[in-house]
């Protein structure tokens, strides 16, 4: 009986470990999954919002889709088109999204979300040189334009420096007389005037529309750069600061004079962007996306889930790693923790708050909570009411901590909301009972043990490699299960027992 039970566990555990490792190896060798996470890269999520007010009648909205250039790569894009007919059309090399609908009553917003990252940094490539269309000008504007072009020609050595000087007029405090007259016009935007001047000077030019990426922007509008052709190659300028070249954080949406957004049957249309930055191991992500499409087997992997669920799983899959830490500490080391899974949940919270802030918040909330809980002891309440009271106190404490820290300017403490409220309340309850029954010494031992386990679990869970392996090779969990089964049958000494029974080990002394 004794042997067979042991053998059984060993066999089951061995098979489980082999299955997990085997699947991992298969994915690595046969499918070429990367075992290492690789470099992390900034991935931008752009959420474009097209809003407009319908004026009655059929509606047609057409949005130019970005044609990624200069090293930008689109990872993924989604359209939200509730109630609209939707199609993506390709016209003369341009992709446009088309939403149509017979009628609509209220102001509506359409969404287009895309994830982009810059795999390489290089300038825009060649482009067809547009014809120069001379502007139609009134007599006085014509004179001013002639004066300005002549002056700029005198100062410059070619098309490139001509444009640079022209744009510097825009950013300068005091413009020349001619420039001030031209740019002072109310009817035309400064950008249009610049284009007119360039055309007048015989320099082929076009606009480049795109977005300056900044993390956390909510209502970013599209920006425009100016591009000129000097007969040999294209030169790009940012009219905002007259600097040449493509800004590093500028995502090119469209090149040339075509419209970005057309709305038929609506007015006050707007195109706005919300921008979020994430840091991801991009090679892995790319690889997975590609594999999911190509292999039926992987269609049942976590990568086939929507992005939000993937995020949830990223956290869930880390829990077994934290649990393993607790199991090891309790069975092999013999550290006492208060509650089996409390350390894991605290560790998960630490991932959100960062370690030091998390520790400070945890100690503050538990400390004050314990103090209040001691008062509740005197009131002699029933268990459920007492726990509920502690939960409410904990939430009040969290709110107070958030408000006070915010007012004092410690933004880090705002992450207090990531700590699991109910777990905190139970921890306080447990600790206070422990205090009454076993004394403060035991509270220190178990509380310290729990925090130690939590910190260790946190450190392990926040390793890039661990996150990569758990998320991309979830079958490793099967191996983990086998290891835990084996640990469950460990009958050897715990590390702390080597100290506890130190006098017993050497009877001769």
């Amino acid at each position, binding site marked *: 009986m*004794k042997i067979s039970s042991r053998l059984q566990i060993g066999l089951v555990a061995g098979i489980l470990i082999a299955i997990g490792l085997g699947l991992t190896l298969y994915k690595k060798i046969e499918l070429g999954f990367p075992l290492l996470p690789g470099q992390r890269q900034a991935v931008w999520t752009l959420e474009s919002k097209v809003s407009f007010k319908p004026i009655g009648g059929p509606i047609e909205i057409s949005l130019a889709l970005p044609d990624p250039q200069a090293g930008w790569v689109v990872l993924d894009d989604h359209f939200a088109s509730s109630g609209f007919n939707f199609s993506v059309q390709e016209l003369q090399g341009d992709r446009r999204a088309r939403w149509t609908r017979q009628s609509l009553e209220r102001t509506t917003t359409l969404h287009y979300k895309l994830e982009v990252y810059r795999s390489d940094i290089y300038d825009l490539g060649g482009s067809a040189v547009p014809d120069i269309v001379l502007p139609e000008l009134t007599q006085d504007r014509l004179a001013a334009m002639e004066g300005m072009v002549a002056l700029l020609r005198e100062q410059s050595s070619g098309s490139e420096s001509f444009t640079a000087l022209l744009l510097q007029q825009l950013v300068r405090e005091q413009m020349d007389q001619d420039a001030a007259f031209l740019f002072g016009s109310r009817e035309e935007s400064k950008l249009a005037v610049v284009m007119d001047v360039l055309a007048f000077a015989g320099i082929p030019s076009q606009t480049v529309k795109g977005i300056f990426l900044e993390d956390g922007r909510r209502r970013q509008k599209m920006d425009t750069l100016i591009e000129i052709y000097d007969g040999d190659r294209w030169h790009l300028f940012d009219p905002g600061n007259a600097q040449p070249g493509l800004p590093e954080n500028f995502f090119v949406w469209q090149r040339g004079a075509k419209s970005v957004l057309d709305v038929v049957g609506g007015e006050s249309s707007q195109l706005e962007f919300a921008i979020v930055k994430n840091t991801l191991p991009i090679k892995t992500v790319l690889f997975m996306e590609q594999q999911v499409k190509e292999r039926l087997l992987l269609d049942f992997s976590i990568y086939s889930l929507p992005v939000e669920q993937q995020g949830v799983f990223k956290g869930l899959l880390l829990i077994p790693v934290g649990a393993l830490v607790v199991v090891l500490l309790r*069975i092999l080391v*013999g550290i006492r923790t208060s509650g089996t899974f409390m350390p894991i949940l605290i560790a998960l919270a630490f991932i959100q708050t960062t370690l030091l802030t998390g520790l400070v918040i945890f100690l503050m909330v538990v400390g004050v909570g314990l103090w209040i809980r001691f008062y509740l002891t005197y009131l*002699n309440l*029933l*268990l459920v009411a*007492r726990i509920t009271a502690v939960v409410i106190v904990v939430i009040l404490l969290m709110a107070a901590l958030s408000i006070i820290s915010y007012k004092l300017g410690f933004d880090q403490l705002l992450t207090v909301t990531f700590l699991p409220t109910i777990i905190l309340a139970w921890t306080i309850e447990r600790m206070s*009972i422990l205090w*009454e*029954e*076993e*004394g403060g010494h*035991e509270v220190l031992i178990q509380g310290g043990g729990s925090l130690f386990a939590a910190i260790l679990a946190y450190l392990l869970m926040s390793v890039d490699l661990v996150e990569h392996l758990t998320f991309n090779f979830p079958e490793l969990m099967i191996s983990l299960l086998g290891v835990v089964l084996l640990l469950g*049958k*460990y*009958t*050897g*000494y*715990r590390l702390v*027992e*080597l*100290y*506890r*029974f*130190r*006098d*017993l*080990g*050497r*009877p001769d002394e």
Partner: protein
Amino acid sequence: MKWVTPGQLRKQGVLGMNSRNIDYIGRNNDRSRYPLVDNKLKTKKAAVQHGMSVPALIGVVRIQHEIQALEKLLEGIEKFVIKPAQGSGGKGILVITERRGDTFIKSTGAALDYRDIKRHTSNILSGLYSLGGRPDVAMIEDMIDFDPMLGNYSHEGVPDIRVIIYRGFPMMAMMRCSTHASDGKANLHQGAVGVGIDIVTGHSLYAIQHNRKVEKHPDTGFRFDKLELPHWDEVLRLASGCFEMTELGYFGADIVLDRTKGPVMLELNARPGLAIQIANQVGLKKRLQLVDEMRPIERKVEERIRLAKQMFGVVLV
């Protein structure tokens, strides 16, 4: 070097926590028998059925309403103990040593009236002293009038004798003496003194406090090496007899010595601690393995005690 190697511990046959849980508790104790030992009321009833000596039960208060009948229940009773059936760590035990009319004198000397006693009972019922705050019942039983000879070895509490029973054999014994540091409780990790007792003679072997050897009681100053427990065979018989009652393979029996009744079984523990090994300066595992090697046949209590004495006698050098 303050630490020992696993090899040294194995050589001494020390039982570790993991091995205790898997090899002995997990393998020999049927979960369905746990309530019998975890609930002192059930333990007592079973013990009475088996003809064992236990403190007499005066009454049980199960619901708040019954507290009103306390006065009738306690009529004419001078000394008694009120305790929760599922209390942990000696919490919620109220010992009344004297009575003057409707005034009750606690073991510490404080005077209580009926209102205090009723409130204490009510607290027990609402689970104030039970693990996890579970609702409980209050037991009222005879006070242990412990053997005066043991008074020298205990401070503010009743010294009890813990005997580890494996498959009905008494394996190891220890007397637990409360100290000022342990607040009158006989819990070793709270600072009570553990005294290893020779299975053969009932004579003390070693004494430890906080896992370190001590010579005499820190409060009373009495030396432990003079200690020899009276009624020792009776203690062993009582403890080993609990095997038939509980059907647990591995447990600890807590026994106290009453002045008039002799050894009385107080409670049982399905997960007895390992500190007893330090108090005896001997590993448990070696002894457990000796029992494992024996033929698994049914033996009478007397036979088991005789064999145990043969196997586990410790000769003091």
